[in-house]
């Protein structure tokens, strides 16, 4: 079938569609691109037509690209002209090989009607920057409340101490819970948070809590809360899949976050805006870290590499592929400028040089490893063998402590004064140790109302 014939047929079909749509009355109000259409494009189209995979050479991850033509040569959208908008043809054709989304039901008629009305009315962008990521245009969602009581456990994937060294922030389900670490008592529940929280960071002045969160496969966010009352201050970043880590810079003037979209985002605290969007990795960014003076960042990724990037120089300084597997945790050496520690699925803690990407030292550990935490001159590595190991960094790296949970140790945090360690388990439990005498201070399920159930996962 020629293109002309197709257009003719599509025109006839369009009349039919028009009759069909007449029954779904689209409100007289103007269609908003960012509110009405961008979420559909993100959810239904972007997996195949995004930055990672641009099938047919067509991308919908920015407004500008949405309008452009793919390999077929027909513009995605021609404002005011439905029959010169490939996107509309693809949404409405009944040729199953051509209709999008492929291998799925067509979009609901009401959604198609929104596209139709918007294109016909000139396809206007109700936002400033046509080159901005669609995810940054969509208004942040209002998250549901957390469960009153937890009927089942979820893993404690993120922990952070408050400035006082006693308050402990823990990941929950659509919340961050706040605990007195010594007594294991719930202080507050910070709501309006994404489904799962994967990274928590408290600002150096103790006033702000940044949370990297998301709903797997659907949404990722970095949200900023006030530590004092748990009020939501702002949504710093949005993405199509979960945000996995966030960290305040040593001075507290910037934040860095990484997530499942492989992008590293640097945010300016004062303006609450993204200053750098760095496509450093081809797969998830699991962890991020700052160096001591806040000029370099290090990242750990599921693409089997760890990287060091200089914000000052605006370039990548190192790519380390020594793990050969998913890299989970990263921390700069507290003293040696040129060295970085990483942990990975290869069950190894590795120390390596930024200058030549060479391994300095590797230590095998009895289980897959999660995010590293640094406290003073020590680093802590939580592992799936239930252990959290403490390593002393000056001189030859050596293990100087061993702390244990009842399940996988998936998160750790240390108090700002370095005197206290908290670890979160896959079973939903948190254990807190006094680092001076290695005594357990408390153990509690960091899930309000959760009663130990018979679970076998």
């Amino acid at each position: 079938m020629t293109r002309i014939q197709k257009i003719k047929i599509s025109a006839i079909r369009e009349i039919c569609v028009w009759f069909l749509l007449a029954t779904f009355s689209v409100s007289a109000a103007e269609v908003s691109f960012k509110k009405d259409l961008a979420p559909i494009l993100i959810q239904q189209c972007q997996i195949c037509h995004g930055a990672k995979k641009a099938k047919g050479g067509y991308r919908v991850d920015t407004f500008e690209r949405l309008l452009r033509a793919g390999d077929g040569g027909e513009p995605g959208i021609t404002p005011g002209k439905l029959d010169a908008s490939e996107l509309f043809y693809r949404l409405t054709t009944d040729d199953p090989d051509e209709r999008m989304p492929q291998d799925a039901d067509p979009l609901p008629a009401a959604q198609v009607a929104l596209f139709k009305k918007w294109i016909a009315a000139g396809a206007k962008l109700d936002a400033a920057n046509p080159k901005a990521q669609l995810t940054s245009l969509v208004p942040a969602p209002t998250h549901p409340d957390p469960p009153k009581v937890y009927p089942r456990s979820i893993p404690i994937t993120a922990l952070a101490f408050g400035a006082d060294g006693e308050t402990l922030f823990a990941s929950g389900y659509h919340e961050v819970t706040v605990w007195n670490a010594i007594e294991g008592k719930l202080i507050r529940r910070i709501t309006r948070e994404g489904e799962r929280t994967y990274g928590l960071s408290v600002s150096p002045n103790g006033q702000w809590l940044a949370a990297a969160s998301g709903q797997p496969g659907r949404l990722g966010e970095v949200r900023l809360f006030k530590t004092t009352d748990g009020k939501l201050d702002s949504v710093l970043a949005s993405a199509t899949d979960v945000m996995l880590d966030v960290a305040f810079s040593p001075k507290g003037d910037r934040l860095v976050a990484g997530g499942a979209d492989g992008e590293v985002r640097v945010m300016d605290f004062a303006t609450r805006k993204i200053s750098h969007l760095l496509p450093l990795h081809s797969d998830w960014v699991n962890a991020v870290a700052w160096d001591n003076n806040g000029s370099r960042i290090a990242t750990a990724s599921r693409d089997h590499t760890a990287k060091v990037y200089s914000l000052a120089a605006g370039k990548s300084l190192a790519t380390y592929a020594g793990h050969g597997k998913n890299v989970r945790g990263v921390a700069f050496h507290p003293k040696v400028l040129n060295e970085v520690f990483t942990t990975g699925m290869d069950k190894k803690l590795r120390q390596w040089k930024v200058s030549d990407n060479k391994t300095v030292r590797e230590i095998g550990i009895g289980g897959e490893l999660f995010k590293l935490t640094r406290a003073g001159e020590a680093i802590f590595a939580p592992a799936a063998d239930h252990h959290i190991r403490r390593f002393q960094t000056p001189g030859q790296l050596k293990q100087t402590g061993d702390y244990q949970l009842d399940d996988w140790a998936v998160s750790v945090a240390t108090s700002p004064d370095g005197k206290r360690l908290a670890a979160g388990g896959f079973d939903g439990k948190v254990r807190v140790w006094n680092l001076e005498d290695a005594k357990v201070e408390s153990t509690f399920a960091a899930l309000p109302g959760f009663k130990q159930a018979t679970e076998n996962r």
Partner: protein
Amino acid sequence: MMRCLGALIFTALALPAAPKVSRIEVQPATVQLMHLRDSAQLTVTAHLADGRVMDVTHEAKFTLSNPAVAGIEAALLRPKAVGATEVRVEYAGHRENVALVSEAKVRAVSFKHDTLPLLSKLGCSSGSCHGAPHGKGGFRLSLRAFDPALDKYTLTREELGRRTNPLHPAASLLLAKPSMAVAHEGGRRFRKGDEDYNLLRDWIAEGCQVQAGEPTCVKLTVSPDSGRVLKHPAWTQQLRVVARFADGTQRDVTRLAVFESSDDKVADIDRTGRVTGFRRGEAAVLVRYLEHIESVLITFVRDVDGFAWPDVPQKNYVDRHVDTKLRQLQFAPAGLCDDGTFVRRVHLDLIGTLPTIAETDAFVADPRPNKRAQLIDTLLNRPAHAKFWALKWGDLLRLSVKQIGAPSVHKYHRWIEGALAANMPYDRFATALLTARGSTLRNPPANFFRTAANRDDAVETSAQIFLGTRIACAKCHNHPFERWTQDNYYGMASFFNRIQRRRTGKGDETWILDAKSGEVTHPLNGRTMKPWAPVAGEMALSAEADRRREFARWLTSADNPFFARVEVNRLWAHVMGRGIVEPFDDFRDTNPPANAPLLDALAADFVKSGYDRRHILRVILNSRTYQAASSASALNRDDRKYFSHYRTRMLSAEQLLDAIGEVTGIPERLNGLPPDMKCTQVPAPELANVGFLKIFGQPERQSACECERSDESSLERALQLYNGRLLDRRLKDGNNRFRRALAAGKADAEVIDELYLAALSRRPSEAERKIITAHLAKSKDRNAAYENILWALLNKTEFLFQH
């Protein structure tokens, strides 16, 4: 509209009246539904007055005496409450009752018995999706759920429990992706609210439980049994699958079993277990649940317009079995080929070369009625027969200079040729290869475990050659298409684990010996594997047992179902151009024989004859089936696998080069080999280093797979024949066949006859002769004209192919 209606009425009238139903049969006779999650598939069979059966599962009417206890939809019973009810089944005026008891117990979704089979059924854990070694989109499942521990980790733990959400099951990625609530590259696998969706959701809602200590599934039963014959238009069949567990319980798993058709051109099967036939033939339906695999063979027949059984001879049991199948499927067999075709065909098959003109003439002129049998015997006893068939075994046993060095190649080749020349019984031949020890130079069959250079190669090569099984997949995971499991692989490996290979330093000599101990450990669970063989199972062998000899003993025992079948199938394939099982070294449930009784009969005869390969060849070659004409008729053109007519095939690389040498009168001289050695007799490919042979598919002998010898056409081949140097040189050679004939003063008619007889084993037809004579008449250069004629002859399909 009127026309459509007319056609409809006409069709209805044209359909033969369906035979009367004499009774109906319902399976199972009683139904017990233990849990609310259970379901039970009923099947209804109508027995017709003419003895046929017909599946009427989806045409029968079901009525429950107490509809509060259970419901039925698409012949699938589902419990509703505790109680008992009668299920009344009616079809064509017949009635049967099924008693149903429902206990309506509640049980959690079983990870092993529900969740994983479902993910397998949905295709999630298939090799092309998340079952690929690295998964898809960062999500990896074990292939067909062979590693439940890994899948448990992946689904409930990996990436911090990303895929399942017990707090809000419907939000789980594991549901959102396949229902396309979140875009999924694998497309839609189910819809929200479907039975499959609900099962996965319940598993998550119940906390993603992975139960310990569940009874293992011990047996899978599929009904109806293998062998059902369905006559058009009643070409559907509902299957029913029941799993039996170690604790004695059983459960209908029709809805969780995976179904596949061995030949989707013949029949397809949907996810509910309903088979639909498309054309005449047979299809094996493979049914898989957990690691259990069963297959059901179904034959689809129909009345063909104008079909009549022709008057063709039946020479022996081969023809009887072939004819039974052909009659059933209504393909008409071809009659015997003419003598010229036969003499060419049988020479190529038994000694690899074309008959000489004198041989052709003598055979055609021979008036004896049993001359074909005589010729077969003569050829089987010629030394050239062993020399040519040594090439086939050379391929299988990987005789190459690269692998074992030239001295060993020659010795090994001589040993194989000797074994074939002496018609060594096949069981002794196999045993010699499998048990040989010592110097590879002094005891050539010891090279078997030299080319199979390590344990895994030894398992895979032995299975490939003697069991016709490509077992290599099972090294890393349970075989995706058949019943071979990883346990089987490593169990079989323990027969070969103790073999040691030591270089003696004397040239290429290697010493093959066995260590006194050494066991195989399973790579996944570290278990020590006991020697295991199909059918026999685990073998309790004494510590000092010679494991290779034990394997050979098992292999060559008369009741081994593989050994004889694989070899007779190989013999059959080499002379028929296609195995009864095809590919002929790929025996598996999903690849059933085209004619099982024929294969069985040949295998039984083979065993009875004392594994006499020549006897089997003689039986096959004397059959009408082998001697049938290759031309197809309207009544057998669609048959490609039931041997209704002879299958044409291109000469192998070596045969072709020998034939070109013979027809042109300029044979290929092979450097460093005896001057009269034919290409079909060369011990190893490197010894006949001719580009032409490589282009036409001569294998390098790197694997024991028959598939290494390529028979695909290519542009390179076409160009070689069109204007390749090898051919051109011979056409222009001053001493070639036609120049010699012309120099001897032969007349054109004689020269043309000679060329035709040499190339095609026949004289030209009148039409051909006319064209050639005309060509010669208008050509100024007689030699050039003959070059063209010979070129045209050598490019004829009739020359390039065996037919």
